[in-house]
């Protein structure tokens, strides 16, 4: 019953998207809001909860990620209500967006809740393919080109993930048979895998595929260009939801790899994420528009999440993940208003907001911008403190304390470059440029308020306790 309830709102959304009536425009957001109800119900159930035999199993980790994703989905839906006030979007493109959003949601739910590597891949591929058409809802040549780019590069990345999964499956099949696809059994039998090298190789290849999909080295500008070419809500979906499905795969695979050879896993992920942050910090320094700025910042944060996770700072990684999942879509959605006087006009972007709605908008956006660079009381400030603490703890247990301190110092230096750039941009937005009147619509404001409340909820002791209890 529960699996049906989970996909029912998406199925209704898919069917309603074919109705060529004005009423559909109001029905579609309602179906999107309905997505939250079964997820809240699932959140309350005792864990682990078998949704579909051993194929779909809800545990504390995946229900948390699903809950965060559904809240982001609602925020995106709210912003979609007034998308036509900022950009030219046809009624049919709007309906098609929802049609593919429904497929995206089904793929995403399968991927997040799956306890099977193969099913995880199928869900991720389904979610990836459905986002291709969402990029094309923006009827420009650039969006068309980027949709193809996404299709091709995304296909290569996802193929690497499948390649890795096949090797991991092959490594464990002699002891587990067809059950070698199951995450839980792989984790409990990790030490018995007869060919650990084969598993590690599969893990490395799958991780490269997942990292490429999130815009890590060497594809740092890939995602930024795609998000620039698509509409703001699509970018919000990418950063707030799709990346969640990718990172949960990384969490699951790395938990098994940790059991096999922790040193190999840590060395590989540490070098990869450090290299990514090194490149991204300089790309961020040169970013000249909001979309690329926020997109590259997303890559930086996903790299930090991966780093904290493999360092043993699972609480830090999950807190950072939640904060990023709410902050980044909020910033992408506010870009629609910030860029209402032109794409590359950063100076004065936070000026010209009149009335209570306008004032609330600029205050919220200011808070989000300062929160994304981890200024207290942002949840990111705490997650980074805990994350760096976990890195030091890991180093204490090895003979590489000095190397770790050096790496953390390098990381802090790179983060300070990003910090400096964001502060400079914020000052330019607030204190430079001409004051031109800009309009904020209630639905957008409502979405931002919702994201701000979700961020505040992350810092409630009960939420922090829940996050600590996940792993």
């Amino acid at each position, binding site marked *: 019953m529960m699996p049906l309830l989970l996909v029912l709102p998406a199925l209704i959304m898919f069917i309603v998207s074919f109705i060529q009536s004005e009423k559909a425009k109001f029905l579609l957001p309602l179906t999107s809001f309905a997505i939250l109800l079964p997820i809240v119900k699932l959140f309350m159930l005792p864990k682990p909860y078998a949704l579909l035999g051993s194929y779909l199993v809800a545990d504390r980790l995946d229900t948390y990620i699903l809950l965060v994703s559904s809240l982001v989905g609602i925020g995106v839906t709210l912003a979609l209500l007034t998308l036509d006030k900022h950009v030219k979007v046809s009624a049919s493109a709007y309906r098609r967006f929802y049609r593919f959003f429904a497929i995206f949601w089904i793929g995403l739910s399968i991927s997040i809740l799956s306890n099977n590597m193969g099913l995880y891949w199928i869900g991720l591929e389904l979610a990836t393919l459905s986002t291709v058409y969402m990029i094309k809802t923006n009827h420009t040549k650039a969006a068309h080109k980027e949709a193809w780019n996404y299709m091709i590069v995304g*296909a290569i990345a996802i193929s690497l993930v499948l390649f890795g999964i096949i090797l991991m499956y092959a490594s464990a099949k002699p002891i587990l048979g067809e059950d070698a696809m199951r995450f839980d059994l792989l984790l409990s039998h990790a030490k018995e895998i007869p060919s650990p090298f084969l598993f590690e190789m599969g893990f490395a290849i799958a991780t490269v595929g997942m990292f490429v999909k999130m815009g890590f080295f060497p594809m740092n500008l890939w995602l930024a260009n795609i998000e620039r070419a698509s509409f703001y809500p699509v970018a919000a979906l990418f950063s707030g939801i799709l990346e969640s499905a990718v990172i949960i795969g990384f969490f699951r695979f790395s938990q098994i790899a940790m059991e096999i050879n922790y040193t190999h896993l840590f060395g590989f992920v540490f070098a990869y994420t450090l290299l990514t942050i090194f490149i991204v910090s300089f790309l961020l320094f040169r970013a000249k528009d909001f979309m690329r700025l926020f997109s590259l910042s997303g890559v930086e944060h996903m790299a930090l999440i991966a780093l904290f996770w493999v360092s043993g700072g699972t609480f830090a990684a999950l807190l950072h993940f939640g904060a990023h999942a709410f902050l980044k879509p909020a910033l992408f959605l506010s870009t629609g208003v910030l860029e209402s006087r032109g794409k590359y006009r950063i100076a004065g972007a936070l000026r010209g907001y009149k009335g209570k709605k306008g004032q609330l908008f600029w205050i919220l956006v200011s808070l989000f911008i300062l929160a994304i660079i981890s200024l207290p009381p942002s949840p990111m400030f705490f997650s980074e403190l805990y994350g760096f603490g976990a890195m030091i703890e890991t180093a204490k247990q090895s003979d590489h304390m000095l190397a770790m301190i050096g790496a953390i110092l390098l990381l802090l230096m790179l983060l300070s470059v990003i910090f400096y750039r964001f502060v400079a941009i914020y000052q330019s937005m607030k204190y430079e440029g001409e004051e031109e009147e800009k309009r904020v619509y209630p639905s957008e404001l409502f979405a931002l308020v919702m994201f701000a409340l979700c961020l505040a909820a992350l810092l409630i002791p009960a939420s922090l306790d829940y996050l600590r209890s996940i792993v």
Partner: protein
Amino acid sequence: MGVDFLIGLFLATLIVALFTSRLYRLILWYSMNSLTLGILALLIGEELHDKAMLITGIVTILIKAIGIPYMLKSFSHRFHFVRQIQSEIKVQHAIILIPAILVFTFYLAEPITHMIHGNANYVAISISSLFLSLLLMMEHRNVAPKIIGFLSMENALFLLGITATEGMPMLVELGIFFDLLMAIVVMNLLFHKEEVTP
């Protein structure tokens, strides 16, 4: 013996596809590549008495060797694809590059082949097919050969699944087929001209 011959044929069809400069020929070679893969799945499935692999083999022939090439040809008619597809890599360079990839892959896959029982060399061939499919995507500027490169890559992964793991669970195999069909639907939508009406 039959499996060895078919694996060779699988690789050969992919290599010929790399030198093709006409779109319909490329589609034909993709179809042949898929047909070989389907028959291979049937033969290995028969050998292992694996019903799931037999079903997968039949579905491969129906969808990949017949259905997808037919759809690609109809897309070509409907959306007026450029049928002269010139490779960016010159033939004389490709003649050196392709064997180099094959030798490199056998060297790369050497540690893995020790860990896989049975068809160890086939794993190396499937990995080299993966690289050759990537080359097919890279050497053309037009979208259609890139799509065929992507589909060939999927074939190479399927071959890896058959040879390295003696077949993946049925549900996963069918899910991959479903995703492939979804990819074709999305490609069809991407080929459609931009809507003008606001």
